[in-house]
């Protein structure tokens, strides 16, 4: 019983149930969930959270929407219930389905308290007037009704339920990785229908987000991060430095700068606990280095 109470306390970390949604807890979750990375067009100097960042996928180009409280171009007219439905069920206020380029399959695992806190925080950011740019998709993908089928296959709504017997830190880590951090959205490869490939959870993608290589982050020693110590992993999440002294780049550098480095030591430890416990998968995503041949020394 005591453990369950502690667990509940951890899952609601920061957000006070009695005092209603707390924007400070909301900001913490906002960072853990990496909202800023997709909803700001940093490369072109776009306004904060006003959307317009392109997401190149094999299915087409998606443009993130404006999530500032501007009433006409942002989500200023939304009520809390609209936000909860978007995050929990992947549907807009008008009922239409969202494309899973918006990672609601992960966000659906967030707790009610965290979603409310996040909503409170989003209400507090400066509104920006910037119209959304329509996605560039092949004609057959413009029928959003198809998304109901996708959801039937690959989407199970509902908050994260702690696994008994795994301990509070492990469960907190699982929550941060699966629900908030949505790590699998890039680190788990997908099939042609955009569903995750079974048995390759967090095993990396040869041609993932923005056309780059997304590394295998399972504890496989050969192709994953099995040789990283717990301390090295925590250090990476905090600073971006890998054990070999190389630094994170691209999208992962954004994930660290805008999110992970702001998390508490306890939460980073929880993420490490969880990541080091997932099944190791041998799955090479990098091009193998050419082996030296005798010819090389022949001339």
């Amino acid at each position: 019983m005591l453990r369950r109470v502690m667990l509940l306390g951890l899952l609601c970390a920061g957000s006070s149930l009695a005092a209603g949604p707390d924007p400070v807890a909301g900001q913490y979750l906002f960072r853990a969930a990496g909202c800023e990375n997709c909803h700001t067009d940093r490369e072109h100097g776009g306004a904060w959270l006003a959307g317009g960042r392109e997401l190149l996928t094999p299915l087409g180009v998606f443009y993130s929407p404006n999530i500032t409280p501007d009433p006409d171009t942002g989500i200023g007219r939304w009520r809390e219930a609209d936000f909860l439905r978007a995050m929990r069920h992947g549907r807009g206020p008008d009922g239409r389905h969202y494309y899973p380029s918006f990672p609601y399959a992960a966000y659906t695992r967030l707790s009610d308290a965290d979603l409310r806190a996040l909503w409170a925080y989003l209400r507090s950011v400066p509104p920006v007037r910037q119209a959304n740019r329509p996605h560039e998709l092949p004609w057959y993908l413009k029928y959003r009704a198809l998304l109901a089928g996708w959801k039937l296959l690959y989407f199970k709504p509902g908050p994260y339920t702690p696994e008994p017997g795994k301990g509070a830190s492990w469960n907190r880590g699982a929550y941060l990785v699966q629900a908030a951090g949505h790590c699998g959205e890039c680190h788990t490869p997908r099939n042609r229908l955009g569903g995750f490939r079974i048995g390759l959870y967090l095993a990396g993608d040869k041609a993932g987000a923005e056309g780059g290589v997304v590394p295998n982050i399972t504890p496989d020693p050969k192709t994953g991060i099995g040789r990283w110590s717990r301390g090295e992993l925590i250090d990476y999440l905090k600073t971006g430095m890998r054990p070999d002294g190389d630094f994170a780049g691209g999208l992962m550098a954004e994930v660290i700068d805008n999110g992970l480095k702001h998390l508490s030591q306890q939460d980073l430890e929880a993420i490490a606990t969880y990541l080091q416990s997932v099944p190791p998968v041998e799955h090479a995503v990098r091009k193998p280095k050419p082996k030296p041949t005798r010819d090389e020394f022949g001339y």
Partner: protein
Amino acid sequence: MKQAISKLLLLGLAAGLATPALADDEEVIKYRKNVMKAYGAHMAAAGAIVQGKVKGSLVGHARAMEATTKNMAAMFPAGSDFGETNALDTVWSKRADFEKRAKDTEAKAAAFAKAAGGSDAAAKFRELSDSCKACHKDYRKEQK
């Protein structure tokens, strides 16, 4: 006749591919990759000292970083954007900003070298780390 033409074409193609500039570019890419690997090794080694995992002096690592980061942007000349590189096109298309970042890393490496023997070393190491990451964020992507 036909054969002669195709031979000529082939010769032209071979000549076009084997311009000295291309070979140089490949050498430049190999060279800068090796320099970057050396940075990584010094940073990992310095990091272990900063965190107290091992005992040692930061001075040598910091001086190596300072010396080899001087004029970093010159390792990315025009034309070295093809081949086995993870440098993004933005290195060349946003040159002014790229050079600003490279200068920042030079400055942070110099500051780290200056502080390496003192109590401020850990803070300066972290600033240099942030500078590495900041540049990789916009200008480096693992593509292969």
